[in-house]
Each structure stands twice: as C-alpha cells, then as structure tokens.
C-alpha cells in the first residue's frame, strides 16, 4: 500500500533517531529543570540569581540561535582544548626521563599518560570523532540546556503548589530530606507539573526537527534527501509531517494515562 519508493526503512530509522533524540533531551532537561527549580527556591542569593539569569536568557533568545551558538562554539572550544593538550604533551614528552618537570606525577608515568592521550587526541578521524561530539550528542546537550529553562519554570510552580503541611507532616514522621522528596514532594509535584511537562514535551518533539540543520539524519533530513533523489519533495516532506502527527497523537495518549496515574485520590468537583 505504502511503498515510499524504497525509502521506508530509512524513514523508519530517521523516525527512531527523532524519538531517541527527543527522549534523551527530555531526560536531560528534566534533570536540569529539577536542579534549576531547586536553585530558584533555595535561600542562596547566588543560586537564585544564576538560575534567574539562565531562564531569562534562554527564554528570551530563539532556540535556533542558541543551538548554532553552542554547536559551533563547542567544536571550536574542543579543538582549542585538544590543541592545548597536544602542545602540553609535546613539551612533556620531549623531556628526558627522570627529570622533574614541575608535574605531580613521575616522569615515567607522565610519558605513559602522554602517549595514550596523544593517541586519542590524534585520532585519524580528528579529535571531534575521538570525543563524542556528533550532531546527536550536540543536539541532546543544546536541546536539554534550552528546555531545562522551561522545565525550571514548570517545576518551580509545581513545587510551590504542594501544601507546606504535607512536608511538615513528613518531617514529623522522621523522614530524611531524600525520603521526603521521593515519597511526598515528587509524587504530588508531578500532578501539578504534568500539564506543563506535556506542553514542553510536544515542543521538544517539534524542536528536534531543527537538529537536522546541524547535520543529524533525523526523519526530516531523510525525507529531504529522499525527496531530492526522487523529485517527489512534497510527498516525502508530507510523510515526515505525518510521522510527527502520529508521534503527537501517541504522546497525547501517554500523557492522559500519566495524568490519570498521578491524580489518583484527587476529588474533582462535579459540575
């Protein structure tokens, strides 16, 4: 029925990449969001200030600009770093064994370390292959960093919505802070945070399309190249759109189930 001109398997692979990228970015931004919300609610001025700066900056600047900024800068920083390591190692290795070079290790250990690190830095494919900074990893880092700011705001609101009495009661039971978070704060906070999480997830899912601009072969990229090869661009790009629609519908269903799970024991007003 749907033969996709032989590009079916590639489109499926691209779809898997998109889903993996979205899930990985969701995980990273979730953790950053929890940390950011804790920082915003902490008593330390420094933590509060830096978290506010982070969220204001990220939410005021387009995600594509941040993505390009980080993607190209990360590469340049990485190259600078490997150059620096190379130069340092060269000086170390040129020293005769046994001399002191103001380095905390013995000369023999330094030479051993230097040999290994040089091998790694001078990988034939270039240092960016030796260090895992492919488009996928860059995408996860940048998307996680960007949507961490949105999650920070979501979680901050949700943390504030949990009744103080609940936490006091937990502490009165003798629970340690970790246990209070795990058993009392987190499950109740999730109920208030779920609508926001659902929104952010939909946005992340769609934002992954941007990562094809920095060279990831996700579903959009596959559709584009398939369209160029077969001169049926409209058809293949529409297929990519259909993939996103299906993913949206599936995640809507999953969110509904999660919402039901986290609102167990909540009484709704009968209207």
């Amino acid at each position: 029925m749907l033969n996709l001109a032989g590009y079916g398997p590639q489109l499926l692979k691209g779809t898997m990449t998109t889903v993996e990228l979205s899930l990985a970015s969701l995980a990273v931004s979730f953790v950053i969001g929890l940390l950011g919300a804790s920082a915003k609610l902490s008593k330390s001025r420094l933590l509060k200030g830096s978290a506010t700066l982070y969220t204001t900056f990220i939410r005021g600047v387009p995600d594509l600009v941040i993505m390009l900024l980080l993607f190209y800068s990360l590469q340049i920083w990485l190259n600078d770093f490997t150059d620096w390591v190379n130069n340092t190692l060269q000086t170390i290795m040129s020293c005769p064994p046994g001399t002191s070079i103001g380095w905390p290790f013995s000369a023999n250990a330094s030479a051993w370390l230097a040999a290994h690190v040089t091998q790694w830095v001078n990988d034939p494919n270039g240092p960016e292959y030796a260090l895992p900074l492919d488009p996928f990893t860059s995408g996860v880092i940048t998307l996680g960093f960007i949507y961490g700011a949105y999650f920070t705001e979501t979680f901050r609101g949700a943390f504030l919505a949990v009744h103080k009495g609940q936490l006091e009661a937990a502490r009165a039971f003798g629970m340690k802070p970790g246990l209070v978070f795990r058993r009392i704060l987190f499950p109740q906070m999730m109920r208030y945070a779920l609508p926001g999480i659902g929104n952010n997830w939909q946005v992340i899912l769609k934002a992954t399309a941007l990562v094809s601009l920095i060279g990831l072969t996700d579903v959009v990229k596959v559709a584009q190249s398939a369209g160029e090869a077969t001169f049926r661009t409209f058809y293949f790009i529409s297929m990519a759109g259909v993939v996103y629609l299906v993913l949206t519908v599936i995640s809507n269903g999953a969110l509904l189930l999660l919402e039901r799970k986290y609102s167990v024991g909540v009484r709704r007003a009968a209207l």
Partner: protein
Amino acid sequence: MIEILQQYWKPFLWTDGYNITGLAMTAWLLVSACGIGFCLALPLAIARNARNPLIWFPVWLYTFIFRGTPLYVQLLLIYTGVYGFGFVQHNEALNEFFRQGLNCTILSFGLNTGAYTTEIFAGSIKETNHGEVDAALAFGMSKITLYRRVIIPSALRRALPVYSNEIILMLHATTLAFTATVPDILKVANDAYSQTYNAFDAFGLAAMMYLCVSFTLIFMFRKAERRFLAFLQP
C-alpha cells in the same frame, strides 16, 4: 567582536546595501506573519466554537495539523515541496510567488501562527461569561452585533496574556527564515560566522539582539495588559 561589529553593524540593523536585512527583516517577518495569523484566527476561532460539526471539524483539522508538525517541516513543504508541482511551475503567478523565499516564509509562518492563535482565541471566546451573552440577547442584539460588541472585545482582551506569549514564540520562530535564504538577523550572523569563524561572537551578537527585541515586546505587552485588562485588576 569589534571587527564583526564594525563590518556588520549595518546588515545587522537594516540593510546590506541592496536588500532589507537583519533587524528590519526580522521585524517585517514578525509583523506580517502575525498580521496574517490574526486575520485568519478571528473568523476561524468563531467557527471553531460552532455547533455544526461541518463547520468546526475543518477548523479543528487545520489547527491539529499545523500545531502537530514542526514549523520547519511546514516551511520545507511550502518552500521546496510546492515548487515541485508542474502546475505551479507553469502558472506564471504561482511560479513568481513560490520562487521567492520571502513569500514562502511569510505564508508558512502566517499559517502556523494562525493555527495557534485560532486555538487561543477560540478558548477565550468559549470562556465568555454566559451572563454577558444573556444580557446582550435580552437587549435584542443580533448575532453579529453580539459578537462585534460583546464577545470579541472581551475575548481578545482576556486572550492578551497568552497571545503575547505566542508573539514571543513567533519571534523565536522567525529565525527559521534563514533556511529559506531570507536575510534576517540570524542569516547575517551566519554570514559573519562563515567569514570570521568566530562563532561565539557572531551568534552571541544575534542572541543579544533577539534578547533586546524580546524584552521590548514583553515591556509593550505588559503596558497593553495594564491598559486593556484594567477591569480585571484586583
């Protein structure tokens, strides 16, 4: 940083000598897209709340498709996909329209923000207090007068906070225009980067410009909210 500023301050702000570029182009994209979106959304939001499924279902389908797919995919579809059809290439007017990156960009941005705006306006129309509608009907207003005098003014006011959010998101989305060779702020930054290989300064400068525009918009909307939503202030 200084060299980039010296060489690129003019393209970053309004022109590269031939075309409108940078901030002026970004502003034009934002204004035209939001204008199209607003004009689309107002009638569609009313249709979205209709009782007849033949009326609300097409509108729902439109918002579902345009909100469920990435804007980048929509832009690709309109910019590269539509031009592949024979009838578009052979029709002179269509050919002229779809060959221009700027036209395709504005069309896809307008359709996209129109879908989000429709849902925003439809939500606030639906939330209109039933007492206001009853009172208007008791005054003997016709359906059109009811919408023109009571429902629309109050719904647009109540939609303002959410709508301002959508405008900010649209500003962020205009950055995609550079993939269709439209010379907005990001395109100028990209040119500056490919000439100097100084990614941090080139894109950092663009980030600062977008931050300033965002803050200006937020400030303006806060003023507008204080004025138009005065009746909701505690």
